[in-house]
């Protein structure tokens, strides 16, 4: 009787340990989530945003295409599509140069995901929309001007 009781207690302790391990395992993704690149997203200038992303002097490239309207009537919703034919693209970042905080999004693309991102962004005023592409350890960039008639950031 006593031996059984011991066993039950032991297995209960074992199960507890597993639960703790699972909880620890589950905590990891949340911690990774907390690694949001604050310095880059809160940067007030394009140069600071690029520094925050770890990008220095990207090379201009014709292999990146930005599809965005020439004139956006509503700055709150500007469709932007970035595609690149550069092989091994691992990241596409979108920067609206004259926004208060220029960095809009940073998209990490594991292998298998094509060099393509389509989204909608807010723009405070007419400015260049810049795409920064990282491929094989090198960075490339291109920009397209979007004229905004009604700003979409605040006021």
């Amino acid at each position: 009787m006593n031996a059984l009781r011991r066993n039950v207690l032991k297995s209960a302790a074992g199960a507890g340990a597993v639960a703790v391990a699972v909880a620890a395992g589950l905590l990891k993704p949340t911690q990774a989530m907390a690694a949001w690149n604050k310095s880059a997203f809160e940067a007030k200038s394009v140069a600071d945003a690029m520094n925050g992303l770890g990008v220095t002097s990207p090379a201009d490239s014709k292999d990146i295409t930005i599809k965005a309207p020439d004139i956006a009537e509503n700055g709150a919703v500007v469709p932007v599509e970035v595609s690149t034919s550069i092989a091994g693209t691992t990241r596409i970042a979108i920067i609206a140069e004259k926004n208060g905080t220029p960095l809009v999004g940073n998209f990490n693309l594991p292998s298998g995901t094509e060099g393509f991102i389509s989204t909608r962004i807010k723009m405070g005023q007419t400015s260049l929309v810049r795409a920064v592409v990282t491929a094989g350890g090198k960075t490339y960039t291109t920009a397209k001007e979007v004229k905004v008639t009604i700003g979409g950031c605040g006021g």
Partner: protein
Amino acid sequence: MAQPMRIRATMAGDVADIKVLMNHPMETGTRKDAKTGQLVPAHFITEVTSTINGKDVLNAEMGGAVSKNPFLGFKVKGAKAGDKVVVNWVDNTGDKNTAEATIG
């Protein structure tokens, strides 16, 4: 708080075309409330991750400059019809949401 998001995943040749529409106010924290004149607190999605059959296919960080109810489109090579797409997001208040769809 978290409202459902919609995922549409279709095959175009050997590339899966995945489109996600998330429901989120995406407040930048710089906008003023028209009635009270107070700043509306920042509330935006910071991270979006996506997997296909458990394999990472997208890991994105966003700022408040992504439009309200964010739309995100991306393309994945090597996926096939019937694969399961899962999309997760987390916002700056710690709110999160998850949705899944099957590539059709």
